[in-house]
């Protein structure tokens, strides 16, 4: 008889091994799925994981990994702070949108002036936009005790309507022949978040993501606020006795994750994407939740997880094009990753025992 036995202490080995085992299990079951669809399984897995990194055209895909991974890491770092303290910001997608709108709006307000100070102003506006949007659930929670999960999630849809509105009105390109969408910031030097070194994919958003990783690491391990965050998540009662102010923590965590999501949106709209349009957001804010958990809410883990997610996206597109795998199969594959991660997570706190329960 197989049964689960609670471990006296969470297993440190399993905690580290879980992501790797989950990736391996995803490869195996993903391979079976692809085989069932009549596609060569090994070739498909190789295309997804190997081709972007070491394939013939990896000189193009490697920089793209940074472009795709940076917003995921930046947002996930912010989310992980709150998640550790049991504060659930599910609305990063909305904060990402608002950051992009504010950042792009600040830049376009100066058009066609060229000046060095425009981009920094856009960065600040982007962060503030995301921060302000996250303050709505934060203040509602601290003042009225509303549920931040629901409020932050619902505000995503409000932000999407807002995005549609500015694409069609306030920020619409006056030279766009009546079509929705803003001017392309890639064509506006002062506002363009260009690659810092051509061909490397390295733009300011990637730099910001790396800084955020270091910052979060220091905060969590060397700073009082980080200690409070961890304490609140692990032992809420103890945190109270230690003098943690829950309201301030909510404001800090939601504000921080909102600002980082806003920054991600701003760097995206001024760089790789280029313009505000109705379909500007592509789900980074939601995918970042997966990235945060895949990275065990640890800054370095998130960095690696962001890279892995980016890899499955880019590799997934290559597999679609080269092997004609349906997009839905790739999505199932990505879903498996989270599923297996959560499933194997069980082994951190439980162990599988075979035989009858011992009599104590």
């Amino acid at each position, binding site marked *: 008889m197989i049964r689960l036995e609670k471990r006296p202490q969470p297993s440190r080995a399993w905690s580290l091994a879980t992501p790797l085992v989950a990736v391996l299990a995803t490869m195996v079951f993903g391979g079976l799925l692809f085989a069932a669809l009549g596609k060569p399984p090994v070739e498909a897995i190789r295309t997804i994981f190997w081709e972007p990194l070491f394939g*013939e*055209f990896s*000189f*193009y*895909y490697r920089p*793209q990994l940074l*472009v*795709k991974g940076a917003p995921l890491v930046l947002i996930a770092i912010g989310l992980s702070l709150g998640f550790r303290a049991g504060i659930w910001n599910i609305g990063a997608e909305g904060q990402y949108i608002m950051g992009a709108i504010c950042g792009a709006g600040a830049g376009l307000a100066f058009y066609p002036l060229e000046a060095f100070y425009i981009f920094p102003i856009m960065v600040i506006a982007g962060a503030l936009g995301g921060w302000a949007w996250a303050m709505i659930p934060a203040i509602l929670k601290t003042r009225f005790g509303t549920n931040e999960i629901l409020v932050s999630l619902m505000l995503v849809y409000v932000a*999407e*309507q807002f995005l*549609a*509105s500015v694409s*069609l*009105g306030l920020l619409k390109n006056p030279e766009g*022949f*009546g*079509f*929705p*969408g803003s001017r*392309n910031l*890639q064509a506006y030097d002062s506002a363009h978040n260009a690659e810092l*070194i*051509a*061909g*490397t994919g390295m733009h300011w958003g990637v730099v910001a993501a790396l800084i955020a990783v270091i910052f979060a690491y220091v905060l969590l391990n060397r700073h009082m606020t980080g200690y409070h965050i961890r304490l609140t998540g692990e032992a809420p009662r103890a945190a109270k006795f230690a003098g943690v102010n829950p309201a301030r923590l909510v404001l800090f965590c939601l504000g921080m994750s909102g600002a980082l999501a806003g920054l991600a949106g701003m760097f*995206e709209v001024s760089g*790789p*994407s*280029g*313009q505000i*349009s*109705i*379909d*500007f957001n*592509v789900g980074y804010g939601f995918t970042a939740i997966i990235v945060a958990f895949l990275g065990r809410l640890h800054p370095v883990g998130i960095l690696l997880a962001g890279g892995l997610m980016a890899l499955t*996206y*880019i590799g997934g*597109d*290559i597999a*679609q*094009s*080269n092997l*004609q795998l*349906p*997009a*839905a199969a790739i999505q199932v594959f990505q879903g498996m990753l989270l599923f297996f991660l959560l499933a194997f997570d069980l082994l951190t706190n439980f162990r599988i025992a075979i035989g009858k329960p011992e009599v104590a």
Partner: protein
Amino acid sequence: MKLTKLLTSAAVALGLAAGAAWAQDKTKVGFVYVGPVGDGGWTYEHDQGRKAVEAEFGDKVETVYVENVAEGPDAERVMTQMALEGADLIFTTSFGYMDPTINVAKKFPNVKFEHATGYKRAENVSTYSARFYEGRAVQGTIAGHMTESNIIGYIGSYPIPEVIRGINSAYIHAKKVNPDVQFKIVWAFTWFDPAKEADAAKVLIEQGADVILQHTDSTAPQAAAQAAGNVYTFGQASDMAEYGPKPRISSIIDNWAPYYIARTKAVMDGTWESVDTWDGIGAGMVGIGEITDAVPAEVKAEAEALIEKIASGDYHPFTGPLKKQDGSDWLAEGEVADDGTLAGMNFYVEGLEGDIPQ
């Protein structure tokens, strides 16, 4: 920093050379789709066009596609990837792919690009679109006759010229056969979202609409109309014949196959040039699906006569006298709208209620 730059550009050059070298024997055609190939509408019809290219040229072509590609950097990456992998011709089938297409085309001067429904062209970028408003004129005529409540519902996708043109054309022709007709327009802000489209259809039906036109791609409004009973609909982008003979009483079918075959042929022959194509019923790019028996015979005959007149070029759906919604003059008696105005249309014609969302 300089060294890195040098190395990268060398690598890019190598990659391009390699990409071009092994693509010689077969012509490789790439398709970038905004939705899933099984959407039963817009993307489905583009994929039918791709299959027609394969059927026409057999071993001489290889086609590849990527579906569900988000507009923006993802689209740019997918196009670049196709070009790197040796595509000779790439069809990018959504308006939002416009700037990405231009960006990638700059990097690959030897690859030809075809962008659907946009207005930016280059040496190696053509644009193409269909005059769907011709089909809308036919729908408007049928809808004006069929409505009992005199309320026609319209599910708009995005308030862009393409969609506004369709609303205007349908309204003008519904009004012509039924002066009491009224349009209720709901904006779904999506091209494909069955849940939202179903909601929009239900709202319109509750408001008394008994004919529903849609500019979104799923069959959800058809299903909603079927559930409601006495409501008529039209297939959009694809025939949607499975909902006939009622609620679906006709349809607009996008027929890209002839164009895709012609353009692929041009690449094979080396005669490809950058062009701006805007074809309608006459050229076969816009097809009208079978008008079912749920439509009275004389209405059907009237609609068919209209199709005939539009196809032959005897009649243009935007012929004066027409006024704008604000009452100002647009087209004088007998005057025909020019393509420039139609391409950027951002106003309603007189009689339509409500504002275009801003």
